[in-house]
């Protein structure tokens, strides 16, 4: 099972076992990673699962669709490596991926 490393808003480092087939948001939420709120549960309707993907890993992900990009543009402090974690499906290649959680959502 791939391990994902989250850096929580306070700086704490959390290593999570993320089963294949679920989303990055689900892996974070099930394990109670701080700051990944995910109110809409993965419908791409709230932008409260916003994360920053480590630039080294960003290019390895499927690019975002327009719906996600539109959400991110008006999220809290978007950056070039911003993604909605509900739109990223866990794959074996993500083992070790580093993900930073913003200080706040929306």
């Amino acid at each position, binding site marked *: 099972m791939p391990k994902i490393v989250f850096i929580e808003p306070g700086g704490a480092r959390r290593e999570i076992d993320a089963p294949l087939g*679920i989303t990055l948001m*689900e892996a974070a*939420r*099930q*394990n*109670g990673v*701080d700051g990944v*709120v995910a*109110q*809409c*549960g993965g*419908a*791409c*309707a*709230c*932008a409260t699962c916003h994360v920053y993907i480590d630039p080294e890993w960003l290019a390895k992900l499927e690019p975002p669709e*327009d*719906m*996600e*990009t*539109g*959400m991110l*543009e*008006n*999220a809290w402090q978007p950056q070039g490596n911003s993604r909605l974690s509900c739109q990223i499906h866990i794959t074996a290649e993500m083992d070790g991926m580093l993900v930073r959680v913003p200080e706040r959502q*929306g």
Partner: protein
Amino acid sequence: MLSTILIIGGGQAGAQAIDTLRREGYQGRLVLIGDEPELPYQRPPLSKKYLSGEMAADRLPFRHRSFYEEHRVELRLGNRAARLDAAARQVELADGETLSYDRLLLCLGAESRRITCPGAALLGVHYLRGLADVGPIQMGFKPRSRIVIIGGGYIGLEAAATARKMGCEVTVLEMADRIMNRVVAPCVSRYFAQEHAAHGVNILCDTRVVRLEGEGRAERVVCADGTSHEADLVVVGIGAVATTALASEAGLACDNGIVVDEFCRSSDAAIFAAGDCTNHPSPRYGRRVRLESVDNAFEQAKTAALNMLGREVAHDRVPWFWSDQFDNKLLIVGLSQDYDRQVLRGDPGSRSFSVCYLKGRELLALEAVNHSKDYMAARKLIAERVLLDPDKLGEGERPLKEAV
């Protein structure tokens, strides 16, 4: 010092309250009482990807069981709160256990409004609210099954889209002159009616159901105009009513929901309430509202938890809602009542557009069809009461936030 907090209701609000209470340092006894046997789970997928079978059941719960163990939450699931004695600060459960509390949070939710016409109690008439409701509906959603859906609101239309995707023959009967008439603009209704028609859903508006007929089981739905529709399965989605019996029987003020103040406090100072079951003030809109929304359940639960711990935090949010139908996403932010002008942005023919509701120059609400950018921009503009230029708003190409 608080030593015991009870939460009744294991939905979105109940789950969030647990999270906030523990995060904010509450160390006392914490008990979650829920009438459903499952760990707190997400409801929105029940009419969408869970119903269609695309989403497995193990993805529905908010948290693993271990989360509740680690956070020392005593679970009383599959166990109904039968009676509340507010004077004695006690809750009696259906299995006879009595629990005392210092603070009580009611997250009772809402329940499906029932049809009352003759034949309403026949077998094969289903409502969609909880996980237990899904199985029987799923079993009936077989290729070529004739599904009749009573009510063209969110639930009815999402169920219709799912049934159609699963190969059923689907008819939606709507009493009003257009679908989703209480929640969206006419052009949005028209767009979704066309989408459903293009996918082969038969939507009939101005159609009032007068009775259901069949031998033991609903076999046809008869309408006021004399038409009748053969059905293998009927799904009813005609709205929901707040669940308040426990609260009203205990003497708490209830009026279309449990009446709470901006701190989510009920008429009893030790009892708070959050989510679909509350009638609460909306500072942004200057009136009392009752909302059926994930966002409201989440935010009120957070506010209630903080106030139970003695922080004075008021609930002041612009609500939002969404619906998925076929490959369309409807995003709504704000409450549109009292608007004096509607402005369309973009062209429905392009499959991506939005409708603004203005009062003077202030944006009250926005409905976005496949347009997340306008939706996200509107959330800020509505909350901050930014004054807009209605003429610039109509220019669909101009970003919404520049229409000031």
